[in-house]
C-alpha cells in the first residue's frame, strides 16, 4: 500500500465506511440510492462527493463487510445493490463503539471550564 492515500476525505478515516454500513443496515441499496440516503439522513450537513462512495464500497467488499449483486432498479437501470453481511454488522458495532469513545474524549477535551 502506498503511504499517501490518494482518496480525498473530508471526514476522519473510516467515517464514510461507517455511515455506509449504518445506512445499508437499514436496507440494501445501490450506489445512487445510497448516496441520496446518506445525504438525507445527514440533512445535507456533511458534504460528501458522491463518487467517493465507490472506492469505499470496494474497500468494504474486499473486507467482506458488504456483498453486492446486480439488479434492475425502480428506474429500470441495471444497478449493483449492496447488502450488509453479518461480518459487516459486527464490524459496524465495533466501529460505532470505538467512535463513541473517541467522541466522548474529544467532547471532554473541548468542554469549557473543567480542568
Amino acid at each position, binding site marked *: *500500500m502506498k503511504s499517501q492515500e*490518494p*482518496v480525498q476525505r473530508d471526514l476522519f478515516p473510516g467515517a464514510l465506511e461507517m455511515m455506509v454500513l449504518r445506512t445499508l443496515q437499514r436496507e440494501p441499496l*445501490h*450506489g*445512487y440510492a445510497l*448516496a441520496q440516503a446518506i445525504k438525507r439522513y445527514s440533512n445535507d450537513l456533511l458534504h460528501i*462527493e*458522491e*463518487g*467517493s462512495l*465507490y*472506492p469505499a*464500497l*470496494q*474497500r468494504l467488499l*474486499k473486507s467482506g463487510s458488504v456483498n453486492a449483486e446486480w439488479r434492475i*432498479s425502480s*428506474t429500470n*437501470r*441495471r*444497478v*449493483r445493490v449492496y447488502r450488509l453481511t453479518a461480518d459487516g454488522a459486527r464490524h459496524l458495532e465495533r466501529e460505532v463503539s470505538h467512535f463513541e469513545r473517541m467522541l466522548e474524549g474529544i467532547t471532554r477535551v473541548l468542554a469549557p471550564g473543567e480542568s
Partner: protein
Amino acid sequence: MNWLARIFHRRRFRSELSEEIRAHLDELTEQLVAKGISPEEARAAARREFGNVFRIEEDSVEVWRWPRLEDFLIDIRYGLRLLAKDPGFITIAVFTLALGIGANTAIFTVADAAWLRSWPGQSPKQLAKLLAATPQGTDNYFSFPDYSDLERQVHSFEGIAAWSRHAKTLRVGTDSQSVLDDLVSPNYFTVLGVAPQLGHVFSLEPDQACTAVVVISDSLWKRAFHSDRDLVGKQVSLNGGSYTVIGVAPPHFHGLEPGVPTDLWLPVATEYDASQLRDRHNRDFELLARLRSGVSPGQARVELQTVGRRLADAYPATDKARDIRLLSESERLRKAIVPVFVLMTLIGLVMLICCANVAGLILARSQTRHREIAVRLALGAGRFRLLRQLLTESSLLAVSSALLGLLFARWLLTMQPAFMPPSDFALGLDLRINLSVIAFTVLLSALTVLVVGLAPALQALKPDLASALKDDTFSRFSLARGFGTRSLFVVAEIAMSVVLLTASGLLVRSLLFSHRIDLGFDSQRNLIFFDLAPGVANYHAEQSAVYFTLVSRQIAAIPGVSRATFARRVLLSDSGGGATLPVSIPGVELPQGQQNIPIKFNAVAPGYFQTVGTHLLGGRFFSNADISSTAGVVIISSTLALRYWPRHNALGQHLIAAGKDCEVVGIVEDAKINHIHESTEPYLYVPFAQVPSNEGTLIVEALDDPRLLVASVRNRIRDVNPDVPVTVRTLPYLMRQAFWQDQMSCSFVVALSLLGMFLAAVGLYGVIAFTVNQRRREIGIRMALGAENRNVLALILAEGLKLTALGTVIGLLVSLAAMRILAGALYGIKPTDPPAFLTAATIAILVAAVSSYFPARRAARVDPIDALRYE
C-alpha cells in the same frame, strides 16, 4: 482466490464499475432534469456533484490491487519484451548458462548416486556397515561363521544382514544371460526393511533356509520376464539348477553396491554347504547392521569390540588382529564429503566461468541500457524498483536456463549406458533427478541470478544522473576500468581451452595410433566367441571334452562357417587371463626358493592360430594328431623362446609344464593377452584336448556378416545339450571393451575442451561486443572521415585476435610443460607432438575469429550519422 480472479479479470471488473458509475450519473442527471434544469447543465452539475470519474475508478481499482505481485508481473512482461528484442543475446546467454547448469546437475546426480545416497531401505540412519581393521588395512569382508557369531552375540543390533556378490547364468526359455546375484543371509530384506512388490522375501525359519528360492530385482523382472505378474511360484533355471521365484524386489532397490546393480538374491544356504558355512578362512561376506532404536553407534561400537576380542581369543588362527569397527551412516556420509567437495569445487568453478561470461554479455548490453536507466531514474523511478527490475530480468534468464539445463542434464544421464564399459551385466548407477538434485539446480540458478544480475545492476545504478544524461564519457570511464580485468579473464579462458584442446589432440592421436598396435592376431576378422560352460550342466572335465568335440563337429557343418575352433581363454578378455602353469625348464636356473616359473597360458584346439590370425614363426601348429596322442607338445611365444633359449633354437627343446614333459613344436608371434597396452611376456599354448576343463570358448569365423550366424550356431549348440549356458561375444565387442578406457578418457577430455572453447568464445564475444559499443562514436568518426566497412571490420577483428593470440601462446606454453603428465597415457606419440599443438592453436584462432566476427560486423554497419547524433 477472489483476489487472483480479480487481477486476471481486470477488464470485466472495470467495465462493471464504469457501468455502475454511468447509471449513477444518469440517475443524478435525471433528477436534476426533473427539477427543471436543461439536460446539458444537468449533466455537468451531476459530474460536479459526483467528482472526477477517472480518479474514482482508479481508486476503486486500487483497492483490489496486489502491488507486489502485479509489479512483479509487469517486471516479467517488461523483461521478456526487452529480451525478445535481442534474440541473439538471449540465445547465447541461456545456452551458456544451461550448459553450465546442465553439466553440473548431471555431475551432481552422479555424485549423489555414487556417494551421497543413503543405504536403500527404511530409516537408513539406523544402518551401519561393519568393517574389520587389520594390520594390512580395512577389510570389508567377514567369514560366515564370524557373521553368525556377531549376529547372535551383539545385542545393540536389531539384526545384521550379510551378502556376497557372485555371477550366474540365467536361462529363460532358450536364452541365457549373465546375471549378478547376491548370496544373502535370510534376514537380509527384513534388516533393510525392504518389502517386495510381489510375493514375499526369505523366511527366517531355519528349516526353510536351504530350499532353492530366489528373489529377483525389478529390473530383471522387466528385462527377462516381461513383468510377468504370475512369476511368483514359478521355476527359473540358474546355472542349470532349478529355483522357485518367491518374490520381486521393489523398483529402485538394486542391492547395496551403487553402480553394480544386483539382479537376484539367493539365501546363502542354497549355495554353501554346511562345511563352507563353518569355514572361518573364507571371507566372502559384507555386513550391514541395523542399530536397535535408542542405541547409539558408540554403545554398539563398544559391544562389537568386546565380541570381536572374544572371537579373536576363540579363533586366533583366523580372527586375531581383526578389530571389528562400525561405520555409521553419518560417518559414511562425512567420508563421502571429500570427493564430493572436490567435485563441487570444480562445479562451482565451471559455473562461475559461465556466469562471468554471461555477466560480460549483460554488461556489454547494459551500456545501451545505461541511458534508459538514467532516464527512468530521472523520471523518479525508485532505485530499489529498478534494481528489482534488473534482477527480475536475470531471474528470467536463470529460470529458463535452469529448465533447459535440467533437460540437458536428463539427456546426459540417459547417455549413461554409452559411458559404461561393455559388459555382460547391466551395469550403471541408478541415476534419478530427484528432489535434492532439483534443489541443487535451483540453488545454482539462484547463484547465477546473483552473480549474473547483481554486478551489472549495481553498475547500472551507480552513475550520477546528470552526467549520464548529458553524455556517457563518465560511464565510459567507469566501465573501462572493468574492461582490463575482463580481457585478462578472456585471455585466461582461451589459454585454458588451448591446454584442453592440446590434451584432446594428443589423446585422439594416441588412440588412432593404438588402433595400429600389432595385437598378435587379426582384429579385422569376422570372429564370434561362444563361451560354453558344460560344467553348469554337471559335466565332468572328461565328459566336457567329448561335448566340445561334438559341438565343433556340428558347427563346422553349418554353411557360412569358415573355421571353428576352441580355446580356454578369449583374446583380450579382462578376466581369467592371469592363470598360469608352473613350468620348469631343464638347464634354466631358478632364483633361490622358487620351485618353478609361473607362465601364463592358453589351451587351444587345432586351427586356433589360423582362425585368429596369429603367425607361426617356426615349427608347426597343433594338429589333430596331438589330440589323440598323449605325448606332451607346446607352442611358445617368441618372447618365451628368446628369454629361455636365447642362444639356440627353441624348437625341439623340452620343458616341464604342470609336471608333464612337453616338446616345443612351434613358436608363434607375441599376442596381447589381457590389455592392448601391456608389455609382452612369455606365453605358452597347450593342446586344448590335453588339458581337460569344463569351460571353453568356441571361436567361429564367418565367411561374411557374423551376426547372421549367431542364431544358427546357438541352435546347434542347444541341439547338443540345451542345459549348457552360452554367452556370445563378437570380436568388435571385445575390441570395444579393450579400447573402452582409452576411448572414454579421450571422449571426456574432448568434451571438456569443446565446453572450454565454447565458453571462451562466449567470453570473447562479450568483450568484443562491449568494445564495439564503447567505441561506437570513434567508429562513427572514422567512417565519417572515410574509413570503409572492411577497415572497421579489420579493426575490430584485430582486437579479438590480439586477445586470442595472447591466450593461445600462453596456452601452448602451459601445454608444453603440462602435457608431460600425459606421457604415460600416450601411445605412439610424444607429449610434444607438433600436429596436436598446431591443431589446438588453429581451432582456437578459428573459433575466436568467428566469435569476434559478429560484433565486428555490427561495428561495420554503424551508421556514422546515427552514431554521432546518439550522444
